[in-house]
């Protein structure tokens, strides 16, 4: 028995997935991670066979190897505790804290067990946290001090608490404590989908509306066997790249702002809006609310005028980004602040399972769009591979990766928009009722959002309703990367490092 290979966005009967004894599950998982795989998702759910087996919960692990294009899943049954995987595979640390918080299951031997989102367990189990003093890191000594920031910050930004452990001016470690944005979305989805569920998925992280809702649509399409026409897939690809373009542009501008370089900051703030307005040209909403639907898209690029308008806006934005953003690399004062600031080593990034541009900036060439393709077929040159100089793991590398991605996304859209496939923009479903979902099934959808890999796992019960819907935002993997980046830096470099990761608070808090 071993991990079962699955495919991105394809449903399979839950009974096909092997369920191992925990000791065997643990050994196989550690072996796979040591061999270079990484964890996409790891979560617990009530065990449907709890009465017969005596184990109250099921653990489900989804692993991926981008190099081998291998996606796999395995389950195990557990009681009130299990032996933590984190000491052997650090990338499980947050997943195990989450399992402990949601179900009161103790990961024995977890080195840093503390709440993730500060809510009561879903099943009314007793809480498993150690004493509060054992939850936070502390630093001692004459010059040692701690600086606490948040939850309410100085900018227009979501809330989070940051605690810097410092020795003089040097940061030893940054401890990040979130949960302020927790709205309880995942728990609310159990038993669904409900009327309000699609809107909550769109608001999982408002800046990643398309990324998250695309994963949701693909899961429903797999479970309900809804085909998606090629034209709809192309419009979805456009929307996903517009979202990436808007956020990459905005963040590169903000990085300029964080080092006091105002030309790029002020131009990019505006160009970001131009990309959002292109999404609004397609669907009326700047963030792409309501653009997608299971089976396709709700808004077609229906007229030649609309397509021409979009193409013209893209050409203009390509020229504007080129002059605005290239200035960063032409300014020695900017480069001296970006280079060698907030460095994360490749080894640390692999061990912690970082994803997206933050991982690519450490030389980890993972991209869901290429490695687990789904939807519109992509050309050979797209997506971009990190270049040698964009692998230094510092702020400069994270900026360079995003600048290269931005240029490639623009090239891709400039070729795709005038050559859209013809045909319908959504599959025609019977209007009177939504189709039934496949009962007792599992489907995993991976989408490369602008921050990195978005992983949604849906598991249905015997009635075809959602027994569990697990969302992993890229920020869930990457916040610890920011903590690592801050080590041996100054506190004053925090805004710059933070923006170079640009992570989501509500995507993490759910």
């Amino acid at each position, binding site marked *: 028995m071993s991990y079962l290979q699955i495919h991105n966005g394809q449903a399979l009967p839950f009974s096909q997935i092997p369920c191992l004894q925990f000791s065997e599950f643990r050994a196989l998982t550690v072996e796979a991670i040591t061999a270079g795989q990484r964890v996409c998702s790891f979560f617990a759910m009530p065990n449907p066979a709890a009465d017969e087996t005596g184990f109250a919960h099921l653990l489900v692990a989804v692993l991926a190897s981008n190099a081998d294009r291998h996606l796999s899943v395995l389950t195990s049954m557990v009681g009130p505790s299990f032996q933590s995987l984190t000491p052997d595979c650090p990338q499980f640390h947050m997943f195990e804290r989450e399992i402990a918080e949601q179900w009161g299951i103790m990961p024995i031997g977890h080195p840093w067990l503390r709440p993730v989102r500060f809510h009561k367990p879903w099943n009314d189990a007793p809480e498993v946290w150690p004493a509060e003093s054992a939850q936070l890191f502390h630093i001692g000594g004459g010059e040692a001090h701690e600086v606490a920031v948040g939850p309410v910050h100085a900018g227009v930004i979501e809330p989070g608490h940051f605690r810097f452990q410092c020795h003089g001016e040097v940061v030893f470690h940054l401890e990040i404590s979130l949960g302020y944005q927790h709205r309880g979305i995942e728990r609310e989805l159990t038993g669904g989908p409900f009327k309000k569920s699609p*809107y909550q998925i769109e608001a999982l992280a408002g800046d990643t509306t398309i990324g998250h809702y695309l994963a949701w649509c693909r899961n429903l399409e797999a479970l309900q066997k809804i085909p998606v026409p090629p034209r709809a897939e192309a419009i979805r690809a456009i929307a996903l790249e517009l979202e990436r373009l808007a956020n990459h542009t905005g963040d590169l501008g903000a990085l300029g702002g964080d080092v006091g370089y105002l030309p790029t900051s002020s131009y990019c703030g*505006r160009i970001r809006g131009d990309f959002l307005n292109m999404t609004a*040209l397609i669907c009326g909403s700047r963030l792409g*609310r309501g653009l997608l639907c299971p089976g396709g898209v709700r808004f077609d690029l229906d007229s030649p005028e609309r397509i021409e308008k979009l193409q013209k806006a893209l050409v203009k934005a390509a020229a504007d980004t080129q002059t605005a953003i290239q200035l960063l690399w032409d300014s020695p004062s900017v480069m001296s602040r970006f280079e060698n600031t907030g460095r994360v080593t490749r080894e640390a990034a692999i061990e912690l399972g970082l994803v997206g541009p933050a991982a690519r900036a450490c030389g980890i060439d993972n991209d869901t769009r290429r490695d687990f393709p789904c939807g519109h077929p992509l050309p050979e040159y797209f997506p971009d591979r990190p270049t040698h100089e964009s692998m230094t793991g510092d702020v400069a590398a994270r900026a360079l990766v995003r600048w290269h991605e931005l240029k490639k996304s623009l090239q891709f859209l400039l070729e795709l928009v005038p050559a859209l496939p013809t045909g319908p923009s959504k599959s025609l479903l019977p209007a009177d009722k939504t189709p039934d979902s496949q009962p007792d099934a599992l489907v995993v959808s991976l989408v490369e959002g602008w921050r990195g890999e978005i992983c949604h796992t849906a598991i249905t019960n015997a009635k075809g309703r959602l027994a569990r819907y697990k969302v992993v935002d890229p920020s869930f993997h990457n916040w610890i990367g920011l903590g690592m980046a801050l080590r041996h830096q100054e506190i004053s470099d925090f805004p710059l490092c933070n923006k170079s990761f640009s992570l989501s608070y509500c995507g993490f808090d759910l």
Partner: protein
Amino acid sequence: MLKILAARYQQGFRTIGYPDRPAVLPDRLRGLPVILAGKCPDACTLCAQVCPTGAILPGQSLRLDLGRCLFCGACTEVCPTGAISFSNDARLAAGKRADLVIGSDGPKLAGGFDCQMFGRSIQFRQVSAGGCNGCEVDINVLTTVVFDLSRFGIKIVASPRHSDGLLVTGPVTRNMKSATIDTCAAVPTPRLVVAVGACAISGGMFRDQPEQNNGVTDLLPVDLFIPGCPPHPITILDGLLRLIGRVK
């Protein structure tokens, strides 16, 4: 230096003319709903059935609560007679919660504020209390050269101590409740509270879920309600300009 000047020349002048000239909005924008209750077939509740947030109120005549509406357009897709549709008008802000409920007679927009005490300048502190970063980014964009909020004397500042009021977004999660109240208390009186977005006004799509508070309205006295999910930046700008009397 020459490269910066060349870039400056290429980027050009980008500030919009609003409010002196009408805003240019996307043709598919779902703005102010237009309600023609006379067109409703007898005993038809199709729109209320599909509405995800209960924004279409029960009763004799069709009425819609902008404070709950997500502007998703699901109601217009099922309406057999076109009794409900979304116009391109982005002006939505109201001064009273009750004014957000609209029927066939259209909206009652905000106006008549007495903000003389703040002189010609208002400083806001923004608090995201469970906001999804949708409303937040559309507030942030007001500070770019396109909207250039500071030309009206309105600024978003870093500390509540320096501000005249709060811009609250999000349904006010359980974990942000006390921080929201504390931040408001840190604002010197007299102070303003502006609720931005469906979540802050009514809880939006999270309404009645246990981890949140159905918005900020029962926690703080709200002076201005800006509906939308998220509101278009013009909607927010228009609301703030009504507050200072720049738009009437």
